[in-house]
């Protein structure tokens, strides 16, 4: 017997059977479509939110990889500073994966205007590399960013300026502690005011030239941290050991996911969430799927008995039901994917969720949500639906294939 013929025949049979009860098929198709749409749409939204949190978080850490004094993270004091990068480290920072790096002094300080004083974090930065790494020059709304490390100006956030009742061109006093625990203070002129994505940061971070801060705090050329970025937070694992080795044993080199375990946990949890969500939706669908197939099999008991009596092998009957289920799943997936892509594309410019902006800030997100449609997530959803869908169809299909022809023919 020609082995291709039966397949073509059972395929046609499966296709026609599918449309014999078109209402039922359409309902099941709608269920699969809605399910698949929800899987992909929700995943894209959550991915978008977590991506945003991670990017914000890494920006503020900042840096995908950071080098500190081993004690600095527990005790962020001026005493736990490190020397500027030596030759070995400078060489390691030349590798192709590193897109930018910078060093900073980061110390707690008090800022005072003539009206009020606040606790802040003073950042002594190298303006050029800082702008490549984390500072967004477009966020300066008044004045300018620092020119170079020797710049004696100060950049403060808009919110802080408001709190201190100060403005561009005014003088403020910065007070901090030098390594010998003497109070070091110095007047600065506010040369720039910035607006951050997250309002709370505007109150905390104050930028000044690296050399200026080093002089103020008697630090010589020491720094608090060296931050490195490769412009892709997902692939830090590959290159960070190079930096770690070059930085040496007596400095602590951490990738972002270890430096901020919240962010690391978010990424890991997100992957877990995507899988759980897809499987849960599938399970909710599977009851309907099995039910549909069982109904399809039962109303055709006599017909199946007749086919068996006429000599159709039971394996072919099994295939026929499986193909019917496969066709149902594939059409549902197709529609679901199209619907998902169709609803996500109009939202590419972001969804305004500023109504809950302060809540999102607590989680580390910003007030616009950009859905992130990832090919991998789509493939995962499709693969799970097809594979688990066929697996759950085996039971009703096997049931149909194991009818006794005589009994089946006798059913009414």
């Amino acid at each position, binding site marked *: 017997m020609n082995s291709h013929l039966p397949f073509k025949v059972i395929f046609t049979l499966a296709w026609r059977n599918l449309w014999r*009860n078109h*209402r*039922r098929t359409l*309902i*099941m198709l*709608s*269920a699969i479509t*809605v*399910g698949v749409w*929800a899987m992909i749409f*929700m995943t894209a*939204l959550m991915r978008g939110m977590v991506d945003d949190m991670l990017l914000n978080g890494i920006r503020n850490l900042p840096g995908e990889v950071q080098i500190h004094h081993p004690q600095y993270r*527990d*005790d962020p*004091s001026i*005493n736990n500073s490190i020397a500027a990068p030596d030759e070995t480290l400078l060489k390691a920072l030349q590798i192709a994966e590193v897109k930018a790096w910078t060093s900073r002094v980061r110390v*707690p300080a*008090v800022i*005072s205007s*003539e*009206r*009020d004083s606040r*606790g*802040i974090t003073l950042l002594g930065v190298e303006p050029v590399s800082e702008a490549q790494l984390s500072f967004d020059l477009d966020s300066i709304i008044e004045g300018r960013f620092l020119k170079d490390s020797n710049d004696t100006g100060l950049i403060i956030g808009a919110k802080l300026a*408001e*709190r201190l009742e100060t403005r561009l061109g005014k003088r403020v006093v910065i*007070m*901090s*502690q030098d390594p010998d*625990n003497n*109070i070091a203070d110095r007047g600065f002129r506010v040369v720039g005011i910035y607006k951050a994505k997250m309002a709370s940061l505007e109150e905390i971070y104050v930028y000044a030239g690296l050399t200026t801060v080093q002089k103020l705090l008697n630090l010589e050329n020491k720094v608090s941290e060296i931050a490195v970025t490769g412009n892709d937070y997902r692939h830090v694992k590959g290159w960070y050991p190079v930096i770690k080795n070059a930085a040496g044993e007596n400095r602590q080199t951490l990738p972002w996911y270890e430096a901020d375990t*919240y962010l*690391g*946990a*978010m990424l*890991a*949890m997100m992957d*877990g969430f995507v899988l759980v969500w897809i499987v*849960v*939706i599938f399970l*909710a669908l599977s*009851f*309907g799927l*099995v*039910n*549909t197939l*069982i*109904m399809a099999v*039962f*109303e055709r008991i006599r017909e199946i008995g007749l086919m068996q009596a006429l000599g159709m092998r039971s394996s072919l009957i099994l295939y026929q039901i499986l193909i019917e289920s496969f066709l149902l799943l594939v059409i549902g997936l197709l529609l679901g994917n199209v619907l998902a892509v169709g609803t996500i594309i109009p939202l590419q410019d972001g969804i305004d969720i500023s*109504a*809950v*902006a*302060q*809540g*999102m*800030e*607590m*989680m*580390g997100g910003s007030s616009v949500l950009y859905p992130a449609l990832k090919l991998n997530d789509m493939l995962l959803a499709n693969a799970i639906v097809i594979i688990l869908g066929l697996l759950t169809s085996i039971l009703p299909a096997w049931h149909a294939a194991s009818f006794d022809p005589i009994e089946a023919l006798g059913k009414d």
Partner: protein
Amino acid sequence: MNITLRMAWRNLWRHKRRTWLTIGAMIFSNLLLVFLISLQFGSYRMMIDNTLKSYTGHMQIQLDGYNDDPKIRNSFDNIIPLAQKIRKRLKSDTVAARGVAFAMTSSDLRSYGLQITGVEPEFETKVSTLPGLINKGRYFTDINAEEIIIGSVLARNLRVVIGDELTLLGSGRDGSFAAGVVIVTGIFESGVSGIDRSMAQVPLGYFQSLFSMGDEGHNIVINAKDLPLVSALQQNISNIIADRKDLVILDWNVLQPGLKQAIQADMASAWFMYAVLIILVAFSVLNTQLVSVLERTREFGTMMALGVKPVRLGSLVITETFIMSSLGLVIGAALGATLAYYLSIVGFSYPGMEEMAGKFNLPDRMYPSLSLLSILLGPGIVFFCSLLASVYPALRLFFLHPVSAMRAV
């Protein structure tokens, strides 16, 4: 037993497997819904409680404008007598006056810029959990003592232990130089590093003299017995302070807008997920009931020929769905409640939760909070939507012609 009910019951068990699969879909989603909703309720409550009880409180009386612009100058006078008056009028102890200022805090080895809160020792313990979290030393006893309590992380960073001195440097209310030396009398540990790193309290009397505040302060914290009672109490207090036009009473939604919004954002995404689950169940019911109506066309035709009204047949189909949904509701809610109850005792944790929890002042295990609402809300909606889904199959019966129906295959 009513004849419709009896027929519906028997009809259901004509197709055992199909019925159980449909009920299975309901049980599955109900189980999930009860568990997730209880977990949500539990974590929201904890988020609110932990955040508010550690510091903010349910309500605060402040100078109008202080909340938007918390400067040391925006204080109000006679704060201690006013707090006393409110306590008397409310017959409640959970009222405490505070002052807030920034100061550079230095030990021999380290200095940090800190927010310093001046508190009434006797009443602060009633409105905030911090005093109770002191695990080294003691809380204040005298409102004028030159003492300070700080968090454990801060103590470690400042390298101080109980009995050590700290120097406070800042500016007073009038812009004058404020400097003082205080003794560390207590160190608290809340487990939330943000709090343990940044909070410091001194007695209010000393605070007022240090920062040249006179008899002024910045806010009076008031706690209600329970969250739902906040708005009633707020009304009550606003009557008490009606003669002070310069003051406002703000509740926690205004004081901590992020908290409510974080909950709203989480609610929105959670309800999207629930809605999808519920829609899928409804499809499942629609499918089953439609097929069961179609396959009984002949039977229904015969019944109509015998004089049964379409309304009766329609209510038969709805009754069948009602029975299925009730079974799904009872079994699903019972299983879900059992699971949630079990976890509300032993707690629940998943990888990465510890890091998440710290961000929202939550402990590292979650305890679902079981209530009639959290058990019945999800399953109730599933029940309702299932009934709704069977309306279409039931309506089809009205368009049935007995003669052609009896001829149908």
